[in-house]
Protein backbone atom coordinates (compact mmCIF):
# COMPACT_ATOMS: atom_id res chain seq x y z
CA UNK A 1 0.00 0.00 0.00
CA UNK A 2 1.31 3.45 -0.87
CA UNK A 3 2.69 5.59 1.93
CA UNK A 4 -0.01 8.29 1.92
CA UNK A 5 -2.87 5.76 1.99
CA UNK A 6 -1.72 4.54 5.40
CA UNK A 7 -2.58 7.76 7.21
CA UNK A 8 -5.54 6.06 8.93
CA UNK A 9 -3.36 3.23 10.22
CA UNK A 10 -0.89 5.74 11.63
CA UNK A 11 -3.72 7.63 13.34
CA UNK A 12 -4.87 4.37 14.94
CA UNK A 13 -1.35 3.49 16.02
CA UNK A 14 -0.81 6.95 17.55
CA UNK A 15 -4.22 6.88 19.24
CA UNK A 16 -3.43 3.59 20.92
CA UNK A 17 -0.04 4.90 22.05
CA UNK A 18 -1.84 7.92 23.54
CA UNK A 19 -4.25 5.56 25.33
CA UNK A 20 -7.32 7.17 23.78
CA UNK A 21 -10.52 5.36 22.88
CA UNK A 22 -11.85 5.85 19.38
CA UNK A 23 -14.92 7.59 20.81
CA UNK A 24 -12.73 9.98 22.84
CA UNK A 25 -10.64 11.08 19.88
CA UNK A 26 -13.72 11.37 17.65
CA UNK A 27 -15.45 13.61 20.18
CA UNK A 28 -12.27 15.62 20.63
CA UNK A 29 -12.13 16.56 16.95
CA UNK A 30 -15.89 16.81 16.39
CA UNK A 31 -16.58 13.76 14.20
CA UNK A 32 -18.53 10.57 14.80
CA UNK A 33 -16.74 7.41 16.06
CA UNK A 34 -17.95 5.50 12.99
CA UNK A 35 -16.39 8.09 10.69
CA UNK A 36 -13.11 7.89 12.62
CA UNK A 37 -13.31 4.11 12.34
CA UNK A 38 -13.55 4.40 8.55
CA UNK A 39 -10.57 6.77 8.55
CA UNK A 40 -8.50 4.46 10.76
CA UNK A 41 -9.14 1.57 8.38
CA UNK A 42 -7.98 3.72 5.47
CA UNK A 43 -11.44 3.69 3.95
CA UNK A 44 -11.81 7.45 4.01
CA UNK A 45 -9.12 9.86 2.85
CA UNK A 46 -8.27 12.63 5.28
CA UNK A 47 -6.59 16.00 4.97
CA UNK A 48 -6.95 19.68 5.74
CA UNK A 49 -8.27 20.92 9.04
CA UNK A 50 -9.45 17.52 10.26
CA UNK A 51 -5.95 16.09 9.85
CA UNK A 52 -4.48 19.09 11.68
CA UNK A 53 -7.06 18.69 14.48
CA UNK A 54 -6.39 14.95 14.87
CA UNK A 55 -2.63 15.52 14.85
CA UNK A 56 -3.08 18.22 17.48
CA UNK A 57 -5.26 15.93 19.62
CA UNK A 58 -2.58 13.23 19.36
CA UNK A 59 0.24 15.77 19.99
CA UNK A 60 2.13 14.92 16.80
CA UNK A 61 2.99 16.84 13.65
CA UNK A 62 0.47 16.25 10.81
CA UNK A 63 3.31 15.00 8.61
CA UNK A 64 3.95 12.24 11.16
CA UNK A 65 0.51 10.90 10.29
CA UNK A 66 0.66 11.40 6.54
CA UNK A 67 4.25 10.41 5.89
CA UNK A 68 5.41 8.34 8.83
CA UNK A 69 8.06 8.96 11.44
CA UNK A 70 11.16 8.77 9.26
CA UNK A 71 9.81 11.10 6.59
CA UNK A 72 8.70 13.55 9.26
CA UNK A 73 12.15 13.42 10.85
CA UNK A 74 13.90 14.01 7.52
CA UNK A 75 11.55 16.90 6.73
CA UNK A 76 12.29 18.43 10.15
CA UNK A 77 16.04 18.08 9.55
CA UNK A 78 15.72 19.75 6.14
CA UNK A 79 13.80 22.63 7.77
CA UNK A 80 16.50 22.98 10.43
CA UNK A 81 19.16 23.07 7.71
CA UNK A 82 17.22 25.66 5.71
CA UNK A 83 16.78 27.92 8.75
CA UNK A 84 20.45 27.76 9.81
CA UNK A 85 22.49 30.89 9.21
CA UNK A 86 26.14 30.88 8.09
CA UNK A 87 26.24 27.08 8.24
CA UNK A 88 25.89 24.76 5.28
CA UNK A 89 24.48 21.37 6.29
CA UNK A 90 25.10 18.32 4.09
CA UNK A 91 21.47 18.05 3.03
CA UNK A 92 22.29 15.54 0.30
CA UNK A 93 23.21 13.10 3.10
CA UNK A 94 20.22 13.80 5.35
CA UNK A 95 18.76 10.28 4.80
CA UNK A 96 22.05 8.71 5.83
CA UNK A 97 22.27 10.92 8.92
CA UNK A 98 18.72 10.10 10.06
CA UNK A 99 19.32 6.40 9.38
CA UNK A 100 22.70 6.09 11.11
CA UNK A 101 22.03 8.42 14.06
CA UNK A 102 18.25 8.42 14.64
CA UNK A 103 18.65 9.56 18.25
CA UNK A 104 20.82 12.57 17.45
CA UNK A 105 18.66 13.37 14.46
CA UNK A 106 15.58 13.40 16.71
CA UNK A 107 17.34 15.66 19.22
CA UNK A 108 18.17 18.10 16.43
CA UNK A 109 14.65 18.02 15.02
CA UNK A 110 13.12 18.44 18.48
CA UNK A 111 15.41 21.37 19.26
CA UNK A 112 14.50 23.03 15.99
CA UNK A 113 10.81 22.59 16.76
CA UNK A 114 11.36 24.03 20.22
CA UNK A 115 13.09 27.09 18.76
CA UNK A 116 10.14 27.56 16.42
CA UNK A 117 7.74 27.34 19.32
CA UNK A 118 9.77 29.82 21.40
CA UNK A 119 9.96 32.22 18.47
CA UNK A 120 6.20 32.12 18.20
CA UNK A 121 5.94 32.87 21.93
CA UNK A 122 8.31 35.82 21.54
CA UNK A 123 6.31 36.92 18.54
CA UNK A 124 3.07 36.86 20.50
CA UNK A 125 4.49 38.60 23.56
CA UNK A 126 6.36 41.17 21.51
CA UNK A 127 3.28 41.84 19.45
CA UNK A 128 1.24 42.19 22.59
CA UNK A 129 3.67 44.51 24.35
CA UNK A 130 3.95 46.66 21.27
CA UNK A 131 0.42 46.80 20.04
CA UNK A 132 -1.95 45.97 22.84
CA UNK A 133 -3.18 49.50 23.49
CA UNK A 134 -4.63 48.61 26.89
CA UNK A 135 -1.44 46.99 28.16
CA UNK A 136 0.83 49.73 26.78
CA UNK A 137 -1.19 52.55 28.31
CA UNK A 138 -1.59 50.69 31.63
CA UNK A 139 2.16 50.13 31.91
CA UNK A 140 2.84 53.73 30.95
CA UNK A 141 0.40 54.91 33.60
CA UNK A 142 1.95 52.76 36.33
CA UNK A 143 5.55 53.69 35.49
CA UNK A 144 4.80 57.38 35.06
CA UNK A 145 3.03 57.51 38.41
CA UNK A 146 5.91 55.64 40.03
CA UNK A 147 8.33 58.15 38.48
CA UNK A 148 6.31 61.06 39.86
CA UNK A 149 6.20 59.52 43.35
CA UNK A 150 9.90 58.66 43.34
CA UNK A 151 10.92 62.10 42.21
CA UNK A 152 8.63 63.95 44.63
CA UNK A 153 9.49 61.71 47.57
CA UNK A 154 13.21 62.23 46.94
CA UNK A 155 12.74 66.00 47.06
CA UNK A 156 10.86 65.74 50.36
CA UNK A 157 13.48 63.39 51.80
CA UNK A 158 16.37 65.76 51.10
CA UNK A 159 18.04 67.27 54.17
CA UNK A 160 17.11 70.87 54.93
CA UNK A 161 13.87 72.71 54.76
CA UNK A 162 11.88 73.54 51.68
CA UNK A 163 9.30 76.25 51.38
CA UNK A 164 6.04 75.23 53.19
CA UNK A 165 4.06 76.01 50.05
CA UNK A 166 6.17 73.55 47.98
CA UNK A 167 6.19 70.97 50.77
CA UNK A 168 2.39 71.01 51.02
CA UNK A 169 2.05 70.77 47.26
CA UNK A 170 4.40 67.79 47.06
CA UNK A 171 2.61 66.04 49.91
CA UNK A 172 -0.65 66.49 48.06
CA UNK A 173 0.90 65.23 44.83
CA UNK A 174 2.29 62.11 46.51
CA UNK A 175 -1.06 61.33 48.03
CA UNK A 176 -2.81 61.72 44.66
CA UNK A 177 -0.19 59.62 42.88
CA UNK A 178 -0.30 56.89 45.51
CA UNK A 179 -4.06 56.62 45.02
CA UNK A 180 -3.63 56.52 41.26
CA UNK A 181 -0.86 53.93 41.47
CA UNK A 182 -2.99 51.67 43.64
CA UNK A 183 -5.87 51.96 41.21
CA UNK A 184 -3.87 51.48 38.02
CA UNK A 185 -1.90 48.55 39.51
CA UNK A 186 -5.12 46.81 40.49
CA UNK A 187 -6.54 47.37 36.99
CA UNK A 188 -3.35 46.05 35.35
CA UNK A 189 -3.19 42.94 37.53
CA UNK A 190 -6.89 42.30 36.90
CA UNK A 191 -6.36 42.59 33.15
CA UNK A 192 -3.36 40.24 33.16
CA UNK A 193 -5.11 37.72 35.44
CA UNK A 194 -8.13 37.68 33.18
CA UNK A 195 -5.99 37.19 30.07
CA UNK A 196 -3.99 34.36 31.66
CA UNK A 197 -7.10 32.60 32.92
CA UNK A 198 -8.72 32.66 29.51
CA UNK A 199 -5.51 31.63 27.78
CA UNK A 200 -5.98 34.32 25.21
CA UNK A 201 -5.42 38.03 24.95
CA UNK A 202 -8.76 39.52 24.13
CA UNK A 203 -7.74 43.05 25.02
CA UNK A 204 -9.68 44.83 22.31
CA UNK A 205 -13.18 44.36 20.89
CA UNK A 206 -11.87 43.01 17.56
CA UNK A 207 -10.21 40.11 19.37
CA UNK A 208 -13.43 39.29 21.20
CA UNK A 209 -15.19 39.22 17.84
CA UNK A 210 -12.57 36.91 16.35
CA UNK A 211 -12.81 34.57 19.34
CA UNK A 212 -16.60 34.58 18.92
CA UNK A 213 -16.38 33.66 15.22
CA UNK A 214 -13.76 30.97 15.92
CA UNK A 215 -16.02 29.44 18.57
CA UNK A 216 -18.76 29.17 15.91
CA UNK A 217 -16.40 27.69 13.32
CA UNK A 218 -16.97 30.87 11.23
CA UNK A 219 -20.28 29.36 10.16
CA UNK A 220 -23.84 30.29 11.20
CA UNK A 221 -26.46 27.73 10.05
CA UNK A 222 -29.40 29.90 11.10
CA UNK A 223 -28.26 32.74 8.80
CA UNK A 224 -27.67 30.21 6.01
CA UNK A 225 -31.30 29.14 6.54
CA UNK A 226 -32.47 32.71 5.98
CA UNK A 227 -32.94 33.82 9.57
CA UNK A 228 -32.11 37.37 10.64
CA UNK A 229 -28.74 38.36 12.09
CA UNK A 230 -30.61 39.08 15.33
CA UNK A 231 -31.14 35.32 15.72
CA UNK A 232 -27.45 34.93 16.55
CA UNK A 233 -26.88 35.35 20.28
CA UNK A 234 -24.11 37.86 20.97
CA UNK A 235 -24.28 37.53 24.76
CA UNK A 236 -20.78 36.01 24.92
CA UNK A 237 -19.29 39.29 23.74
CA UNK A 238 -18.37 41.40 26.74
CA UNK A 239 -18.34 44.91 25.34
CA UNK A 240 -20.92 46.83 23.34
CA UNK A 241 -18.16 47.72 20.85
CA UNK A 242 -17.50 44.02 20.23
CA UNK A 243 -21.21 43.33 19.77
CA UNK A 244 -21.48 46.19 17.29
CA UNK A 245 -18.51 44.93 15.25
CA UNK A 246 -19.83 41.35 15.33
CA UNK A 247 -23.24 42.51 14.12
CA UNK A 248 -21.64 44.34 11.18
CA UNK A 249 -19.57 41.31 10.20
CA UNK A 250 -22.64 39.08 10.51
CA UNK A 251 -24.68 41.47 8.34
CA UNK A 252 -22.06 41.15 5.62
CA UNK A 253 -22.11 37.38 6.15
CA UNK A 254 -25.91 37.38 5.73
CA UNK A 255 -25.69 39.48 2.55
CA UNK A 256 -23.06 37.09 1.17
CA UNK A 257 -25.25 34.09 2.06
CA UNK A 258 -28.20 35.65 0.23
CA UNK A 259 -26.04 36.42 -2.82
CA UNK A 260 -24.48 32.97 -2.90
CA UNK A 261 -26.57 30.40 -0.99
CA UNK A 262 -24.81 27.40 0.46
CA UNK A 263 -26.53 24.97 -1.88
CA UNK A 264 -25.55 26.90 -5.01
CA UNK A 265 -21.96 27.16 -3.84
CA UNK A 266 -21.80 23.49 -2.87
CA UNK A 267 -22.98 22.49 -6.32
CA UNK A 268 -20.06 24.32 -7.90
CA UNK A 269 -17.31 23.13 -5.57
CA UNK A 270 -14.85 20.58 -6.96
CA UNK A 271 -13.20 18.11 -4.62
CA UNK A 272 -9.62 18.60 -5.59
CA UNK A 273 -9.26 22.17 -6.74
CA UNK A 274 -10.66 25.49 -5.61
CA UNK A 275 -10.62 28.32 -8.11
CA UNK A 276 -12.44 31.32 -6.62
CA UNK A 277 -12.44 33.22 -9.91
CA UNK A 278 -14.09 30.34 -11.79
CA UNK A 279 -16.59 30.05 -8.94
CA UNK A 280 -17.39 33.75 -9.29
CA UNK A 281 -17.86 33.34 -13.05
CA UNK A 282 -20.01 30.22 -12.74
CA UNK A 283 -22.21 31.57 -9.95
CA UNK A 284 -22.42 35.15 -11.25
CA UNK A 285 -21.37 36.52 -7.88
CA UNK A 286 -18.60 39.07 -7.34
CA UNK A 287 -15.11 37.81 -6.50
CA UNK A 288 -14.93 39.36 -3.00
CA UNK A 289 -18.16 37.63 -1.97
CA UNK A 290 -16.80 34.29 -3.18
CA UNK A 291 -13.60 34.80 -1.13
CA UNK A 292 -15.57 35.56 2.02
CA UNK A 293 -17.98 32.67 1.42
CA UNK A 294 -15.19 30.13 0.93
CA UNK A 295 -13.70 31.07 4.28
CA UNK A 296 -17.00 30.47 6.10
CA UNK A 297 -18.00 27.05 4.80
CA UNK A 298 -18.71 24.12 7.11
CA UNK A 299 -16.10 21.39 7.23
CA UNK A 300 -18.39 18.99 5.38
CA UNK A 301 -18.08 21.22 2.30
CA UNK A 302 -14.56 22.53 2.84
CA UNK A 303 -12.42 19.86 4.51
CA UNK A 304 -9.22 21.88 4.02
CA UNK A 305 -8.19 24.83 6.19
CA UNK A 306 -8.88 28.34 4.88
CA UNK A 307 -7.77 31.73 6.14
CA UNK A 308 -9.28 35.14 5.51
CA UNK A 309 -8.13 38.71 6.11
CA UNK A 310 -10.14 41.84 5.47
CA UNK A 311 -8.66 45.34 5.64
CA UNK A 312 -9.58 48.90 4.83
CA UNK A 313 -7.65 51.33 2.62
CA UNK A 314 -5.39 52.35 5.52
CA UNK A 315 -4.22 48.75 5.79
CA UNK A 316 -5.93 48.29 9.15
CA UNK A 317 -7.11 44.73 9.63
CA UNK A 318 -10.88 44.54 10.01
CA UNK A 319 -11.28 40.78 10.34
CA UNK A 320 -9.02 37.73 10.47
CA UNK A 321 -9.53 34.03 10.26
CA UNK A 322 -6.17 32.42 10.81
CA UNK A 323 -4.86 29.37 9.02
CA UNK A 324 -2.10 27.10 10.39
CA UNK A 325 1.36 28.15 9.24
CA UNK A 326 0.48 31.68 8.10
CA UNK A 327 1.16 34.13 10.91
CA UNK A 328 -1.26 37.04 11.17
CA UNK A 329 -0.17 39.79 13.60
CA UNK A 330 -2.76 40.57 16.23
CA UNK A 331 -2.97 44.27 15.50
CA UNK A 332 -2.17 46.04 12.22
CA UNK A 333 1.37 46.49 10.94
CA UNK A 334 1.30 43.42 8.74
CA UNK A 335 3.75 42.74 5.91
CA UNK A 336 2.99 45.19 3.06
CA UNK A 337 3.96 42.50 0.54
CA UNK A 338 0.79 40.51 1.22
CA UNK A 339 -1.48 40.28 -1.84
CA UNK A 340 -4.17 41.83 0.40
CA UNK A 341 -2.34 45.15 0.15
CA UNK A 342 -1.22 44.67 -3.46
CA UNK A 343 -4.92 44.51 -4.31
CA UNK A 344 -5.45 48.00 -2.85
CA UNK A 345 -3.06 49.33 -5.51
CA UNK A 346 -5.12 47.68 -8.24
CA UNK A 347 -8.77 47.95 -7.19
CA UNK A 348 -11.23 45.52 -8.76
CA UNK A 349 -8.44 43.37 -10.24
CA UNK A 350 -8.59 39.79 -8.90
CA UNK A 351 -5.12 38.80 -7.73
CA UNK A 352 -3.65 35.34 -7.22
CA UNK A 353 -0.20 34.82 -5.69
CA UNK A 354 1.59 31.81 -4.31
CA UNK A 355 3.44 32.97 -1.21
CA UNK A 356 5.80 31.53 1.40
CA UNK A 357 6.11 33.25 4.74
CA UNK A 358 9.65 34.07 5.85
CA UNK A 359 10.84 32.66 9.13
CA UNK A 360 8.28 29.89 9.12
CA UNK A 361 8.53 26.23 8.21
CA UNK A 362 8.64 26.08 4.45
CA UNK A 363 4.87 26.10 3.93
CA UNK A 364 3.35 27.69 0.85
CA UNK A 365 -0.06 29.30 0.39
CA UNK A 366 -2.22 30.35 -2.52
CA UNK A 367 -3.57 33.80 -1.76
CA UNK A 368 -6.50 35.29 -3.67
CA UNK A 369 -7.25 38.97 -3.15
CA UNK A 370 -9.33 41.83 -4.44
CA UNK A 371 -10.05 45.41 -3.37
CA UNK A 372 -13.46 46.89 -4.04
CA UNK A 373 -15.23 50.19 -3.30
CA UNK A 374 -17.93 50.29 -0.66
CA UNK A 375 -21.36 51.45 -1.75
CA UNK A 376 -21.42 55.18 -2.59
CA UNK A 377 -24.60 57.05 -1.67
CA UNK A 378 -23.71 60.60 -2.71
CA UNK A 379 -22.57 62.24 -5.92
CA UNK A 380 -18.85 63.03 -6.14
CA UNK A 381 -18.12 61.22 -2.87
CA UNK A 382 -14.79 59.40 -2.79
CA UNK A 383 -15.40 55.66 -2.51
CA UNK A 384 -14.05 53.86 0.54
CA UNK A 385 -12.09 50.80 -0.51
CA UNK A 386 -11.77 47.50 1.28
CA UNK A 387 -9.66 44.49 0.45
CA UNK A 388 -10.11 40.78 1.12
CA UNK A 389 -7.59 37.95 0.92
CA UNK A 390 -8.40 34.25 1.03
CA UNK A 391 -5.48 32.04 2.13
CA UNK A 392 -5.39 28.41 1.01
CA UNK A 393 -2.54 26.14 2.18
CA UNK A 394 -0.74 24.42 -0.68
CA UNK A 395 -0.36 20.64 -0.52
CA UNK A 396 3.21 19.82 0.52
CA UNK A 397 3.63 17.71 -2.64
CA UNK A 398 3.29 20.94 -4.65
CA UNK A 399 5.87 22.94 -2.67
CA UNK A 400 8.46 24.49 -4.97
CA UNK A 401 6.46 23.81 -8.11
CA UNK A 402 5.72 27.51 -8.61
CA UNK A 403 7.96 30.41 -7.75
CA UNK A 404 6.47 31.45 -4.41
CA UNK A 405 6.73 35.12 -3.41
CA UNK A 406 8.51 35.58 -0.07
CA UNK A 407 6.39 37.59 2.37
CA UNK A 408 6.58 38.19 6.11
CA UNK A 409 4.22 38.45 9.03
CA UNK A 410 5.34 41.79 10.43
CA UNK A 411 8.75 43.46 10.24
CA UNK A 412 9.50 42.88 13.91
CA UNK A 413 9.62 39.11 13.55
CA UNK A 414 10.67 38.82 9.91
CA UNK A 415 14.28 37.70 9.34
CA UNK A 416 14.61 39.08 5.78
CA UNK A 417 17.27 41.76 6.05
CA UNK A 418 17.33 43.17 2.50
CA UNK A 419 13.62 43.88 2.18
CA UNK A 420 12.59 47.11 0.44
CA UNK A 421 9.34 47.09 2.41
CA UNK A 422 11.01 46.93 5.84
CA UNK A 423 9.68 49.53 8.32
CA UNK A 424 11.63 48.67 11.45
CA UNK A 425 14.42 46.31 12.56
CA UNK A 426 13.60 42.71 13.31
CA UNK A 427 14.03 41.39 16.82
CA UNK A 428 15.11 38.09 15.24
CA UNK A 429 17.91 39.61 13.17
CA UNK A 430 20.57 39.22 15.82
CA UNK A 431 20.51 35.47 15.58
CA UNK A 432 17.88 34.99 18.26
Amino acid at each position, binding site marked *: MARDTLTGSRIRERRLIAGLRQADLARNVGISPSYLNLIEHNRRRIGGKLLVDIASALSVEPSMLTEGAEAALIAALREAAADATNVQAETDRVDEFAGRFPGWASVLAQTHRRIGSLERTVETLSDRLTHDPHL*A*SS*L*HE*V*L*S*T*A*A*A*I*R*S*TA*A*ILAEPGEI*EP*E*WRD*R*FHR*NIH*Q*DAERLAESSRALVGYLDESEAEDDHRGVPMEQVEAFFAAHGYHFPQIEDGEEVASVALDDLESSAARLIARRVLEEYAADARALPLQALAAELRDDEIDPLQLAVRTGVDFATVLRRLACLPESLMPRATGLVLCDASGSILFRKSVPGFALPRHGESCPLWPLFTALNRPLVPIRRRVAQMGRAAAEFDCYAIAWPQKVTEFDADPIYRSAMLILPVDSADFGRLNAQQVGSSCRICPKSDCAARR*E*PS*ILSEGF
Partner: protein
Amino acid sequence: MTGGPDAAWPREERARMSRKVLLIEDEPNITEAIRFLLTREGWQVETHAEGTDAVEVIVASRPDLVILDVMLPGKSGMDILRDLRELEGMSKLPVLMLTARGQLRDREMAEKAGVSRFMTKPFSNTEVLTAVRDLHAQASQG
Protein backbone atom coordinates in the same frame (compact mmCIF):
# COMPACT_ATOMS: atom_id res chain seq x y z
CA MET B 1 2.37 76.40 27.52
CA THR B 2 2.71 77.27 31.19
CA GLY B 3 5.05 79.61 33.01
CA GLY B 4 8.69 79.66 34.07
CA PRO B 5 10.28 79.64 37.50
CA ASP B 6 8.07 79.76 40.49
CA ALA B 7 7.68 82.85 42.60
CA ALA B 8 9.13 80.90 45.53
CA TRP B 9 12.62 81.80 44.22
CA PRO B 10 14.18 85.14 45.11
CA ARG B 11 14.20 87.79 42.40
CA GLU B 12 18.03 87.96 42.17
CA GLU B 13 18.21 84.19 41.80
CA ARG B 14 15.78 84.29 38.91
CA ALA B 15 17.57 87.22 37.34
CA ARG B 16 20.73 85.21 36.73
CA MET B 17 18.85 82.41 35.10
CA SER B 18 19.73 82.29 31.47
CA ARG B 19 19.73 78.59 30.59
CA LYS B 20 16.35 77.43 29.43
CA VAL B 21 14.92 73.91 29.45
CA LEU B 22 11.67 72.96 27.78
CA LEU B 23 9.94 70.03 29.49
CA ILE B 24 7.38 68.24 27.31
CA GLU B 25 5.55 65.81 29.59
CA ASP B 26 1.85 65.15 30.10
CA GLU B 27 2.16 63.81 33.64
CA PRO B 28 1.61 66.95 35.78
CA ASN B 29 3.29 65.70 38.94
CA ILE B 30 6.44 64.62 37.10
CA THR B 31 6.44 68.04 35.48
CA GLU B 32 6.13 69.72 38.84
CA ALA B 33 8.94 67.71 40.43
CA ILE B 34 11.36 68.21 37.55
CA ARG B 35 10.48 71.88 37.31
CA PHE B 36 11.27 72.28 41.02
CA LEU B 37 14.60 70.47 40.72
CA LEU B 38 15.80 72.34 37.65
CA THR B 39 14.60 75.73 38.80
CA ARG B 40 16.58 75.22 41.99
CA GLU B 41 19.61 74.51 39.82
CA GLY B 42 19.23 77.82 38.08
CA TRP B 43 17.37 76.73 34.98
CA GLN B 44 14.48 78.60 33.48
CA VAL B 45 11.86 75.92 32.93
CA GLU B 46 9.04 76.02 30.42
CA THR B 47 6.56 73.19 30.17
CA HIS B 48 4.24 71.78 27.58
CA ALA B 49 1.93 68.74 27.78
CA GLU B 50 0.82 68.11 24.18
CA GLY B 51 2.49 66.15 21.41
CA THR B 52 0.61 67.57 18.43
CA ASP B 53 2.22 71.02 18.35
CA ALA B 54 5.38 70.15 20.29
CA VAL B 55 7.76 70.80 17.38
CA GLU B 56 6.34 74.30 16.86
CA VAL B 57 6.59 74.97 20.60
CA ILE B 58 10.26 73.91 20.64
CA VAL B 59 11.06 76.10 17.66
CA ALA B 60 9.26 79.10 19.19
CA SER B 61 10.79 78.57 22.65
CA ARG B 62 14.41 78.08 21.47
CA PRO B 63 15.46 76.24 24.64
CA ASP B 64 19.01 75.18 25.48
CA LEU B 65 17.76 71.68 26.20
CA VAL B 66 14.57 69.67 25.77
CA ILE B 67 13.24 66.95 28.06
CA LEU B 68 10.78 64.92 26.04
CA ASP B 69 8.36 62.19 27.12
CA VAL B 70 7.76 59.42 24.55
CA MET B 71 4.06 58.77 25.12
CA LEU B 72 2.31 62.10 24.63
CA PRO B 73 -1.22 62.93 23.55
CA GLY B 74 -1.51 63.57 19.83
CA LYS B 75 2.00 62.70 18.69
CA SER B 76 4.68 60.42 20.08
CA GLY B 77 7.96 61.77 21.40
CA MET B 78 9.76 59.61 18.84
CA ASP B 79 7.94 61.34 15.93
CA ILE B 80 8.49 64.75 17.50
CA LEU B 81 12.21 64.07 17.70
CA ARG B 82 12.41 62.84 14.10
CA ASP B 83 10.57 65.93 12.83
CA LEU B 84 12.68 68.21 14.98
CA ARG B 85 15.97 66.83 13.66
CA GLU B 86 14.82 67.53 10.10
CA LEU B 87 14.64 71.24 10.84
CA GLU B 88 17.53 73.54 10.18
CA GLY B 89 19.51 74.42 13.29
CA MET B 90 17.89 71.70 15.39
CA SER B 91 20.24 68.84 14.71
CA LYS B 92 22.39 69.49 17.79
CA LEU B 93 19.78 70.67 20.29
CA PRO B 94 20.25 68.38 23.35
CA VAL B 95 17.18 66.19 23.85
CA LEU B 96 16.75 64.00 26.92
CA MET B 97 14.04 61.44 26.29
CA LEU B 98 11.94 59.95 29.10
CA THR B 99 10.08 56.72 28.52
CA ALA B 100 8.28 53.91 30.31
CA ARG B 101 9.71 51.50 27.73
CA GLY B 102 13.37 50.72 28.21
CA GLN B 103 13.89 47.80 25.87
CA LEU B 104 16.95 47.72 23.66
CA ARG B 105 14.96 48.26 20.48
CA ASP B 106 13.26 51.35 21.93
CA ARG B 107 16.65 52.71 22.82
CA GLU B 108 17.93 51.93 19.31
CA MET B 109 14.89 53.57 17.76
CA ALA B 110 15.46 56.68 19.87
CA GLU B 111 19.14 56.81 18.91
CA LYS B 112 18.23 56.48 15.28
CA ALA B 113 15.77 59.35 15.67
CA GLY B 114 18.59 61.50 17.08
CA VAL B 115 18.18 61.41 20.86
CA SER B 116 21.01 62.81 23.00
CA ARG B 117 20.21 60.77 26.14
CA PHE B 118 17.58 58.13 26.86
CA MET B 119 16.15 57.59 30.37
CA THR B 120 13.58 55.07 31.53
CA LYS B 121 10.87 55.69 34.11
CA PRO B 122 10.95 55.60 37.07
CA PHE B 123 14.18 57.61 37.10
CA SER B 124 15.93 59.18 40.08
CA ASN B 125 16.31 62.93 40.50
CA THR B 126 20.07 62.57 40.49
CA GLU B 127 19.93 60.82 37.13
CA VAL B 128 17.87 63.62 35.62
CA LEU B 129 20.05 66.38 37.04
CA THR B 130 23.27 64.64 36.00
CA ALA B 131 21.96 64.07 32.48
CA VAL B 132 20.85 67.69 32.13
CA ARG B 133 24.20 69.00 33.40
CA ASP B 134 26.19 66.65 31.14
CA LEU B 135 24.16 67.40 28.04
CA HIS B 136 24.37 71.12 28.59
CA ALA B 137 28.12 70.96 29.21
CA GLN B 138 28.66 68.92 26.04
CA ALA B 139 26.52 71.30 23.99
CA SER B 140 28.40 74.33 25.39
CA GLN B 141 31.75 72.79 24.49
CA GLY B 142 30.64 71.64 21.06
